[in-house]
């Protein structure tokens, strides 16, 4: 049984301290583990809504040339955290698309640790956060590239859209690179609603809620753009926009 984490732990620094005290230690010992065989392609859509708040942990071992894809939506109205640990074999790929969305006072966060253990692995992580009220969205992404993992190509991109003053977002990219012939990109940006676009839409007849929905949809779409199945991708987007319904 593990000791409960606190916000003094690096990986939990942006978590909701009060919520952490309420966690049951057993919650932290549960890992959903999966091993992908060489060449295997496996995808999982995770809808972390009010039926699935709290801490979720996934550990993936991705074999040579295999491809693991996780598309996640964290929209629950209380503390929600998805941790994903990935070890990539030779030429393996990890795709992560995540959206945190919501208001209230809750913190919603993604924490990924991607280990490029062997050469030619690729990873692409795109996270979008849309928050209002006093809510917080976080993306903590750790990337480790082993000495032998030459030709690694890894990218992390985080963007947050804060609809109201009082909402916040945190990005913590962490790169440990021991190979010299690699590409590792990361970017983070936090912004507000584009008022010029919102007015342009209003001037064409779109009510404010419809305009905001269209703009938010466009904003979060990047996170799920790599999802190969249109119907499933739209289901994630629609679920995210349903969560937007209660925004001010």
């Amino acid at each position, binding site marked *: 049984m593990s000791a409960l984490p606190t916000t003094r732990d690096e990986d939990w620094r942006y978590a909701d301290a009060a919520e952490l005290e309420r966690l049951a230690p057993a919650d932290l010992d549960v890992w959903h583990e999966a091993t992908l065989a060489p060449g295997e392609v496996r995808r999982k859509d995770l809808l972390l809504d009010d039926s699935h708040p709290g801490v979720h942990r996934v550990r993936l071992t991705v074999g040579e040339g295999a491809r693991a894809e996780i598309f996640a939506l964290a929209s629950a109205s209380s503390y929600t955290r998805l941790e994903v640990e990935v070890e990539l074999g030779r030429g393996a790929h990890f795709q992560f698309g995540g959206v945190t969305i919501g208001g209230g006072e809750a913190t919603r966060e993604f924490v990924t640790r991607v280990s490029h253990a062997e050469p030619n692995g690729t990873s692409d992580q795109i996270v979008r956060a849309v928050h209002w009220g006093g809510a917080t969205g976080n993306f903590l992404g750790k990337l480790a590239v082993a000495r032998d993992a030459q030709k690694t190509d890894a990218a992390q991109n985080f963007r947050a859209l804060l609809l109201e003053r009082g909402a916040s977002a945190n990005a913590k990219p962490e790169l440990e690179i021991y190979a010299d012939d690699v590409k590792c990109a990361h970017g983070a940006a936090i912004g507000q609603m584009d008022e010029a676009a919102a007015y342009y*839409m*209003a001037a064409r007849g779109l009510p404010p809620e419809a305009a905001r929905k269209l*703009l938010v949809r466009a904003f979060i779409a990047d996170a799920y753009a790599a999802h190969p199945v249109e119907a499933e991708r739209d289901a994630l987007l629609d679920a995210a926009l349903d969560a937007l319904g209660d925004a001010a």
Partner: protein
Amino acid sequence: MLTIENLSATVADKPILNGLSLTVNAGEIHAIMGPNGAGKSTLSYVLGGRPGYEVTGGSVTFDGQDLLEMDAHERAAAGLFLGFQYPVEIPGVSNVQFLREALNSQRKARGQDPLSGGEFLKLAKDKAALLKLDMDMMKRNVNVGFSGGEKKRNEMVQMGILDPKFAVLDETDSGLDIDALKTVGEGINAIMRAPDKAVLLITHYQRLLDYVQPDYVHILAKGRIVKTGGPDLARRLEDEGYDEVMAA
């Protein structure tokens, strides 16, 4: 159709419109010309209900309704169209999606049934052809990567699709080459020249008026209409300049 009486407005507490009065009847095309800083764009934004443009006095009646009491999207649904001097780019939202939602929002507000995807595309194709805008551009993101001229033609395609009763066109001719100017001028005539419609053309130059013959030309200076005449007034302005014509 539109009656502006003694309208005063400020932007960031600075008075821009100072007792402007103007009446536009159905079937008429009015041109407003004036030196830089006269308040031309402010007039268009005040009519369009843009946040930040504060009316401090006077009234605007549109089709018997108090225009100033309506939100921007309600003005659009009531039949007002504002052609932007600087059309806004909206990444991630396609022209077609944007306009279909805008049109159907307007139709809903008027108690009309929405257009189906097929009906809408046919309408969009017709109007794009009228303005010689490639249908591929209609599928691209709103104004993203469009040239200045393409943005202005796109404004007119939008006007054609939304089919307003009254259009305020703010320097729709700026940024157009000779051929595009002719196309846009003919587009305005085709869409808006009708007994039950009216247009307020805001322009710096006579050249658009060669294609779209105004019934009245007004000179706006220091926030009010200082002179009104027929099409010949615009030609005199072009020949003699504002100072000379206003002094006469």
